[in-house]
């Protein structure tokens, strides 16, 4: 390989090259993914068609895509906040779980004695609900931030491990303290007032997508318009320069951790109040990692995150439908979704290296002599 390629003098970094390599990666991943359908006797083109047909082709499917996109957007936004500040947080599975548990707790506590209706008026209930979930996730992830800034712990590993701790914690809650009567380890169904409202009649699309898009706007405002956002970005790019210029680096990491955890928790809230309406085990289902992948593909840009998340959500809703109709396992979607990002990263190779051509340099020197 080292003889076939040589390093470019300067990397190709014009926007068009970046866009082309991203689109090329998506196409290439889908092309490779096509082979995955063959053992199941499915025509890949038809499979892709029916995949997108079922997720985007009907209002009902689109509603499901929106529902799937909402938590992805929120996790991706959390990734954006954390990673742009240089905080290598990977604990979104845990934050989602914790956020869902907090939302479930609040939804269940908020019920009046007779089990009918909620105690707070809706105008207060929803802000309080969002605040409770955000705070729970913020504290969960913030503790990782404290370990990193105070004690120099490794946030990558700590946050990975905290995922499992959170999952076991919720398993414990739904099989013990919060368990409803019945055979399954799960809580009671929440009162309908605490469900996220349906926003498109005739579909299951709920208000989660509104929360997600609103959050995307706020994160964009934070990163590109606000002073503290600029400080986060400087911290992420160069902690030394940030400290030198008077930014309190530790506090910025902590802020990023809390923000990321809070956004991750909102993703959990959206899942539990929008789709499942009760707390049970195994809620995040890998969304906490796919959300990171979405953020990477969107180059950590809060506004790009929304369309990328929609694409990923469409892929995954479509794959579920495909599994039901043809038996192609929906796990191919993990392959497709990760391949896209791996190819985007690998395409940097082409931006930095070029095929080695016969050496003209030597010949030129000869002539000049």
């Amino acid at each position, binding site marked *: 390989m080292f003889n076939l390629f040589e390093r470019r003098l300067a990397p190709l970094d014009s926007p068009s090259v970046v866009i082309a390599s991203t689109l090329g990666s998506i196409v290439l991943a889908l092309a490779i993914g096509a082979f995955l359908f063959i053992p199941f006797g499915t025509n890949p083109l038809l499979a892709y068609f029916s995949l997108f047909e079922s997720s985007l082709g009907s209002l009902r499917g689109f509603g499901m895509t929106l529902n799937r996109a909402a938590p992805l957007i929120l996790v991706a936004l959390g990734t954006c906040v954390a990673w742009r500040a240089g905080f290598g947080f990977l604990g979104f599975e845990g934050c989602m779980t914790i956020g869902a548990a907090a939302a479930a707790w609040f939804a269940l506590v908020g019920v009046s004695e007779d089990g009918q209706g909620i105690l707070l008026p809706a105008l207060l209930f929803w802000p309080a609900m969002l605040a409770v979930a955000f705070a729970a996730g913020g504290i969960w992830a913030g503790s990782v931030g404290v370990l990193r800034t105070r004690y*120099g712990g490794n946030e990558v*590993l*700590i946050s990975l491990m*905290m995922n499992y701790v959170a999952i*076991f914690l919720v398993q414990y809650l739904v099989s013990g303290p919060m368990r409803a009567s019945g055979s399954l380890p799960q809580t009671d169904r929440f009162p309908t007032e605490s469900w996220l409202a349906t926003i498109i009649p005739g579909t299951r699309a709920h208000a989660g997508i509104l929360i997600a898009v609103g959050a995307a706007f706020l994160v964009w405002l934070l990163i590109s318009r606000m002073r503290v956002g600029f400080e986060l970005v400087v911290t992420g790019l160069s902690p030394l320069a940030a400290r030198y210029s008077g930014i309190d680096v530790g506090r910025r990491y902590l802020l990023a951790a809390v923000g990321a955890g809070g956004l991750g928790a909102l993703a959990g809230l959206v899942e539990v109040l929008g789709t499942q309406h009760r707390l049970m085990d195994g809620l995040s289902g890998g969304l906490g990692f796919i959300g990171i*992948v979405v953020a990477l593909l969107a180059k950590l840009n809060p506004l790009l995150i929304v369309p990328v998340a929609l694409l990923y959500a469409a892929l995954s809703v479509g794959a579920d439908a495909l599994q039901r109709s043809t038996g192609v396992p929906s796990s191919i979607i*993990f392959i*497709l979704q990760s391949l896209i990002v791996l190819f985007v990263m690998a395409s*940097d190779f082409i931006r930095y290296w070029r095929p080695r051509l016969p050496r003209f340099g030597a010949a030129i020197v000869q002539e000049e002599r």
Partner: protein
Amino acid sequence: MFDDFAFSAFVVTWLAAGIRLAGPLLLAALGEIYAERSGVLNVGIEGTILLGALGAYLVTYATGSPWLGVFGAVAAGVISNLFLAWMYVTVMANQVVVGVVFNIFALGLASYFYRIVLGTSGNPELIPMIGSISIPGLSDLPILGPILFSQSALFYVSIVIVLIAEFVLLRTRFGLNVRAVGENPRAAANAGISVVGIRYICVLLSGAGAGAAGGYLVLAQIGLFRDTMVVGQGFIALAIVIFGRWRPIYAALAAFAFGATDALQLSLQLFSFDVAPQLLLSLPYVFTVIAVSGLIGKTAQPAALMEPYRDR
């Protein structure tokens, strides 16, 4: 509380299980030590373990020989890490990002191929496993015998590998080169060492270790394959590397400590203690958090860890 006999029975079951559970962690950590000593943080070992487990299962399923299964596990680990090495070393992508995304990819790939080969329905078939070996004489020792000397053959192999890994890292040319590349790649390059070459080899070694760990899971612990069987063992191996201060022997001790924590839950349940099993299950992870939190002393990692090396 309990009498002497029950206590020693508890300790024996617990520690024997701890050592059994430590095996995969140990193998994965050994490979990772080489990768990290050469300056590459290979987070992808989580996915590699899964692919190794799949490789071991499929090869054993097809051939009926668990030892060929070990070979299949190592091969799956090495081949998949060839891609990772290319991403880490040649493309110079962010190592954590590549590892995390690769783990998702491996999860998809493992469950896809498993479905293909075995069909969508039906229960997974058990495959032949690698049996335990009771070392004559030693296995009859009280307490120590059942704990240490009646383990799977793979366990003894792993112990030998620990000793070899320690010796190679600290006493040989290759080990010196690896350590130099991880501490100061430019200095190593200027002394005539191929940084790229060493890093490729080390990532492939970590692939072999993680693949073998997957094989260990399937062939010495469970006897079947599930796409949920790895659940963070690769990440725990990363913590073991830190805990073991990047030294194979210390890592072995750390792996046993982690294995014992994990086994505590099984043993306590077996002896019907009234503790919520989920809280016990989370112990190894809590333990890891504490281990890497920086609360109990920091150790110097290889100076060039996670830093891609650009030559020319």
